[in-house]
Every structure is written in structure tokens, then in C-alpha cells.
């Protein structure tokens, strides 16, 4: 994922340079490893949306590491914190494997990048030689189906769609039949954005998930939660609520090409153990990458 770095670096305008490098500033000014330094590092984490509680946990881990490895020089602290973060985010057993037949339900709150991520994923899987089908189950938002259709054309994959306003569960049902009949490898299901506190919309999602489980229980069924990298602490609650109705298997963290760090995924990892699987780094079809804990840690602080 040197790639992600390159992308970030090349996208770096002067603005971004001014905003980042906070860590260097903190460490550059520090003379010794003391309470002041830990407090400032905690600030760096909080300003990356890691959240107060999780920041405290990470700093505690950092203290331990420093003690165990007998670190005494200030310029080793940055590396140690990065290690703490990447170990924290690393996934022991990678559960998310896209093997035939795989059904991926893509969910999340409004405007986070679900449809775009499906476009990018279709392209990626197609390039890997898989037969991909999209299901346009956002029948609610204005022109959502047209938007997905543009992505289907770009990625050159099939799409199953109904009219705007029709029942999303019915679209998914049809898509599942087409997926079986056409002997597809991956079915990607686009859903309407919904806030996790809207009961009826969450019920609708639960119903979609049920249809998938019932119609094709033998397939690898995954629910991916798409999170906007600029999200604050509310994303933790989002994850909890979506987890309840759709059994989350992973996160797609989008919009990391801006100045946001997506630090909230650390809090989500802490409370729900859901791994980040992919990251979005732009609006283009190739702007999707596998998540890499090390590179993420590098970029976060």
C-alpha cells in the first residue's frame, strides 16, 4: 500500500502540509518523554477523531511499550505509537474473502460513498477475473439507480434494477435469482443511505438481509459498512446499530484523500472488533485500496 502513501503525498497541497505534521511538531518540541508529551500525543489522536476513551487506551499501550522496550529517546516515540496503532488495527484472521459465490450487502448512513464504492469494487473484482453483478436496491433517492447504472457501465458489469420507488427487497430477490442463473461470482447490493436511528428504514434493511440469507444461505454473505472518513464520534453508534440488523463483517472507510484521518475506526475496532477492509481515496474507479494497518497508522499521526 505504498500506493496509498503516494496518492496522499501527490494529493498534498500546501494546505494539507500545514495541517498534518502535527506529530512532528509535538515531537520536535519535546525534550524528554514525560507527562506533557503523552498529553500532547493524546491531543494528536483526538484531533484525528480517535475519540477520548480510545485515545486514552492507546496512550496507555504506548506507555507500556516504552517501558517494555526501554525507549528513552524522544525520536523513537513516534515509531512506537505507530506500532501501537497498527497492532491495534491488524486483523489476526482475515475473515473477508471473496470466493465464489459471494454476496456483499453495502450499507451505511446517507452520502458516505456506498454507490461509488460499489462501482470501484465491481471494477476491482472484474479485473480479478470474476463475474460481477450489481443490485440497485436504493430505489428511494433521486437518480440513485441512474448513478449505479453509470458505474455498471464504467466497470462493464451487469446490473439488476427496478423502477424508482419499488420494493428494495424485491430487487434483491430478483438479483439473487439472476446471480444464480448467470452463475456469478460476486453480487454487490447497493442500498439507500439511512440514518441508524430511523426504525422503519433499519427494519427494511433487516428484511433485505433476511431475503439474502433465505434465498442463498450457502453463499459467503458479507455486510460491509461504509463510513465517511470525515465522520466524528457518531460513527461508533452507527456501527453498533447497523451491526444489530445486518451483522457487519467489515468497514469501507472512504474520502481519505482529504485531510480527514478516519480515526474513528479505532474506536469502532475497540468496541465492536469490526475490521476495516477497504479504503476510498478518491472519486475515480481505481481509487480504492485494501486496508493496510501500517500505512493507516503512518497517515493517522
Amino acid at each position, binding site marked *: 500500500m505504498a500506493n496509498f502513501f503516494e496518492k496522499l503525498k501527490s494529493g498534498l497541497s500546501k494546505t494539507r502540509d500545514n495541517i498534518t505534521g502535527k506529530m512532528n511538531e509535538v515531537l520536535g518540541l519535546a525534550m524528554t518523554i514525560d507527562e506533557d508529551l503523552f498529553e500532547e500525543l493524546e491531543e494528536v489522536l483526538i484531533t484525528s477523531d480517535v*475519540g477520548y476513551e480510545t485515545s486514552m487506551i492507546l496512550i496507555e499501550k504506548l506507555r507500556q511499550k516504552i517501558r517494555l522496550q526501554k525507549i528513552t529517546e524522544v525520536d523513537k516515540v513516534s515509531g512506537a505509537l505507530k506500532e501501537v496503532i497498527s497492532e491495534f488495527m491488524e486483523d489476526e484472521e482475515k475473515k473477508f474473502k471473496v470466493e465464489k459465490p459471494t454476496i456483499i450487502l453495502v450499507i451505511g448512513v446517507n452520502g458516505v460513498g456506498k454507490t461509488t464504492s460499489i462501482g470501484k469494487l465491481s471494477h476491482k473484482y472484474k479485473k480479478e477475473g470474476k463475474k460481477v453483478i450489481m443490485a440497485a436496491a436504493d430505489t428511494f433517492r433521486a*437518480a440513485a439507480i441512474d448513478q449505479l447504472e453509470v458505474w455498471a457501465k464504467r466497470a462493464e458489469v451487469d446490473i439488476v434494477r427496478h423502477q424508482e420507488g419499488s420494493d428494495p427487497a424485491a430487487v434483491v430477490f430478483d438479483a439473487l435469482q439472476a446471480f444464480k442463473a448467470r452463475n456469478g461470482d460476486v453480487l454487490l447490493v447497493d442500498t439507500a443511505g439511512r440514518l441508524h436511528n430511523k426504525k422503519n428504514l433499519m427494519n427494511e434493511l433487516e428484511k433485505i438481509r433476511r431475503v439474502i440469507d433465505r434465498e442463498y444461505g450457502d453463499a459467503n454473505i458479507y455486510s460491509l459498512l461504509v463510513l465517511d472518513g470525515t465522520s466524528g464520534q457518531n460513527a461508533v453508534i452507527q456501527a453498533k446499530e447497523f451491526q444489530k440488523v445486518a451483522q457487519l463483517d467489515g468497514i469501507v472507510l472512504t*474520502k481519505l484523500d482529504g485531510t*480527514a484521518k478516519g*480515526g474513528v475506526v479505532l474506536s469502532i475496532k475497540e468496541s465492536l472488533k469490526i475490521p476495516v477492509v477497504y479504503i476510498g481515496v478518491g472519486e475515480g474507479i481505481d481509487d480504492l485500496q485494501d486496508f493496510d494497518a501500517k500505512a493507516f497508522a503512518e497517515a493517522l499521526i
Partner: protein
Amino acid sequence: MAFDSLAERLQEAFKKLRGKGKLTENDIKEAMREVRLALLEADVNFKVVKNFVKKVSEKATGSEVLESLTPGQQVVKIVNEELTALMGGSEAKLSFDSSITAFMLVGLQGAGKTTMAGKLALHLRKRNRKPLLVAADIYRPAAIKQLQIVGKQIDIPVFAMGDKVSPVDIAKASMEYARKEGCDVVIVDTAGRLHIDEELMNELKSIKSSIRPMETLLVVDAMTGQDAVNVSESFNNSLDLTGVILTKLDGDTRGGAALSIREVTGKPIKFSGVGEKMSDLEVFHPERMASRILGMGDVLSLIEQA
């Protein structure tokens, strides 16, 4: 979860204060630690929190508070008043031109600009204006179609020239079209973009200088975290915003970003989006937002019970 315990924690902190006859500086300090945490968990920007807590601490340790009979209530009152003041105090109105008024909506990807364009149009028509929606997002797949569907839902005309004409030319042409059609407000929907994308930020500057909008409104997702400050500062520096619109407030987010944006740009928040329907628009109320950020609704009612 963080948010549930937050209101509880605040209540605890204030309850402790309330129980005391007189307060020491240490009591205040402890309460302020909880306030600080509450603001951080609500996504208020880190620096803003720092300044705010400092300011409130100073006021709270003044003699009127320490010597009053109800010091706990006094502190809560100060926190709430200061937050409301930070949020801009009172409602901010839209400005109109004597001839055709142009409004421009800008912001990050997915913030809610296109939806808000429709909501604003409906809001203005209810106030006897004749709005025209302008499709100046030529980049996002089906963005033009989206605005056209929105326009159709609320029966407002949409001006579009496809995705081969530059947004600047589209915006210019729309003013002429509005004149011809007898529309008096032009609402330009622009493509979402990153604040660090110089090329696309320049495009917005060109649109702005060619149509001279009365309002350049930054549309911000209320769920935004710490980055809200960088984003709004950059947009404001490039475009000299006239106001901000917060969206997706129908969620359960505390929306602390609102506070940070107001503080950093000095520009008022004018409206909030509270749903996906075209009627889901509210005039922004600083005092309500202040209460929401701290979870003060609960806290205040608890104080009143005492």
C-alpha cells in the same frame, strides 16, 4: 455507549456542584473536566474546546458565582449561555438582491448540497419567490438527473446544459435564463469537492465572480468530526462564505462540528436539514443547538427539578 453516559456524566458533575453550598475553584475545575469531555465526545474541535473551557472557567470562578446561593445552577447557566453566544446568538436571515438573486451551495462530497438546493427552492417559493435550480455539477454520475428529479418533485424549474459545458458557463447562462423566465432567485448546485483540491476550488471562485451571488453557503454534514475546522476554514478563505447550512440533523449526532465552524469562520449557520424530504428544512436556532451539543436538554431539566 459514549453518548448515553455523556448526559449522565454531565448531570453527575452538575449534581455534585448543586449539592454544595459554596464552590471552591477545585469543584469548578472538576466540573470543567466533564464539560471538556462532553464537548470532545460531541465532536467540537479540540482547540475550540480548549478556549471555551478556559473562558467558562474564568467566568465561573468569578465572585458572583462562587458567592451565589446556587453556584451549580450558575455554572450550568454560564456554560449554556456561552455556547449559545458561540453559536451566533440569534437567527440569521438570507440576503436578497433588488433584481435577480443568486445563491450558491458548496461543500464536500455527499454533504447534502443537491438535496438542500431543492429544500431551499421550496422554502423560497413558499415565501412568494420564483426560484430556478441550476445543475452545475458536471462530474458526479447522474448529478444532473438527480437535481432534475428533485425539481420535478417540488415543481421547480431546473436549468441544465448537460455535462460537456463548464460549470462557470452554466452558471452564467442560468442568470440570463432566469431573466427570460421571470425567476427571481437562482440556486446553483455545485459538485462536491475537497477543500484541498485547488483546481476545483478555483472553479468555484470563477463561478462566484461571474454571478456575484448574495449568498455563498457552505453545506456541512452534521456528523463531521474534527476535520470540520480545516474544511470550513479553507472554503471560507477561498470563497468568503456568507453562511453555513448543517445537514442530517435528524440523526442522533450531537453536531459539535457546528460550534467549531461558527467559531472558526465567524459565519452564521442559517438553516439545518432534518431529513431527506423536501420539506425537511428548519431555520437554525443557536440556543437549541447549544443545548443539543451538551445534551443540555436532559441536564437543564434535571437542574430545574431540584
